[in-house]
C-alpha cells in the first residue's frame, strides 16, 4: 500500500466547468433579485403605514426612469427564474399518475409555466381594471 497516494482535484471555479452549472448558478443568482423586490414591496407597506404622504413619496420613487428601467430588467430576470424553477419542478414531486399513466416531466413543466403565465396575466388585468 506504500504507493497508494490518491490525488484530489480542486473544486475551484467548478460552476464554470459545465453549461448546466452555469444555468444553475443563474437560477440561484436570480433568486437574489426576487428577495430584493420583496424588500422593495415591503418598504412600500411600511411607507403606507406612515401615512399618505410617505406612501406618495415611495410611489414617486418608483416612477423614476431608473426605477422603470430596473423594473424592465427585473421582469426579464423573474421570467428566467420562473422558467428555471418550473423546469426543475418535475424532479421535486412524487410521480403524478393520471389515468394510470405517469405524467411526463415536460407536461408538469408546461403546466407550471402556463399557471404562472395565467396568474401574471390575470394580475395585470386586475391592476389595469383598478387603474381605470
Amino acid at each position, binding site marked *: 500500500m506504500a504507493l497508494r*497516494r490518491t*490525488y*484530489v*482535484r480542486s473544486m475551484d471555479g467548478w460552476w464554470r466547468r459545465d453549461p448546466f*452549472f452555469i444555468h*444553475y448558478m443563474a437560477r440561484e443568482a436570480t433568486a437574489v433579485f426576487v428577495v430584493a423586490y420583496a424588500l422593495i414591496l415591503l418598504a412600500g407597506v411600511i411607507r403606507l403605514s406612515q401615512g399618505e404622504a410617505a406612501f406618495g413619496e415611495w410611489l414617486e420613487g418608483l416612477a423614476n426612469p431608473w426605477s422603470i428601467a430596473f423594473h424592465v430588467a427585473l421582469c426579464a430576470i423573474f421570467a428566467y427564474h420562473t422558467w428555471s424553477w418550473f423546469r426543475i419542478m418535475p*424532479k421535486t414531486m412524487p410521480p403524478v399518475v393520471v389515468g394510470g399513466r405517469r405524467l411526463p416531466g415536460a407536461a408538469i413543466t408546461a403546466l407550471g409555466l402556463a399557471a404562472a403565465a395565467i396568474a401574471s396575466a390575470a394580475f395585470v388585468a386586475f391592476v389595469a381594471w383598478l387603474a381605470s
Partner: protein
Amino acid sequence: MPEPRTITVEVLRYQPAKGTNPYVDRWTIPYTEDMSVLQGLQYIKDTLDGSLTFRWSCRMAICGSCGMMIGGVPKLACRTFLRDLAPGPVRVEALAHFPIERDLVVDAEDFVGKLERIKPWIEPREPRTLEEGPYTQTPAQLARYESFSHCINCMLCYSACPQYGLNPDFLGPGLTALLHRYNSDSRDGASAERMQLVHSEEGVWSCTAVGYCSEVCPKQVDPANAVNVNKTASAIDWFARFLPGKR
C-alpha cells in the same frame, strides 16, 4: 478500401509511483464505426501504452465500472462511441469529485462505505416462515420503486453533483435513490432507520436541486427526484413531531 479513420484521445494521467501531479498523454488511434471509448482505451493499452489504467467489465452498460469524464461530462465509456466524438480530440479524465487512484481509476471507498450504511436490502416488514410462502407484491406496489431499482452504482451522478464535490460527506444522489427504492418497497420494514440518514446533516438537505445527476444517469433512475421527494418526507416527519399523540 476506405482510409481507416483516426481520432486523437487525450487522457489525464496520474501515476502515483512517478511522484508527479496529473499530466496529459495523447494518442492518435484508428477507429471503426462501432468502437466505443472503452475500446479505444483498450487499443491504447494493448498496443501503445500498457501502463494506462482504467476499470471495465461488462462492456454493455450494466456493471457500472467504466464511468469517466468524457469531454467533461460523466459517461459510461462502453456506451459512448468514438464516431460521435469525431473529429476529436476526445478528452478523457477520471470521474470528477472522487480522488484519483491511478489514471482513470477513482477511489470508490467513500461510495461503498455509504452503500453499506443505507442497508441496500429488504428487511422484512413481517418475518415469514418458509411454509407461509413468498412475499407478494401487486404491480402497483412494484411501480412505486421500480425505476429506482435500475441503479447500477456507476457513480456518474456523483460526478455531476457539485454539492458532493464540495462536501463529500453528502450521501449523494445515487445512494439516496437506492435508499428510496428500499423505503418504497411494500415488503420492507426498515424505513424508519434509513430515514435517520435522510434527515441527517449529510442527508437530503445538502442538495440544492442542481438536477444534473438525473441528466447524466445512464439508467434514467432520476436520483434528483428521489432526493427531493425525500426532502418533503423529511419535512413532514419533522413537523409531525409537534402533532398531539406524537413523541
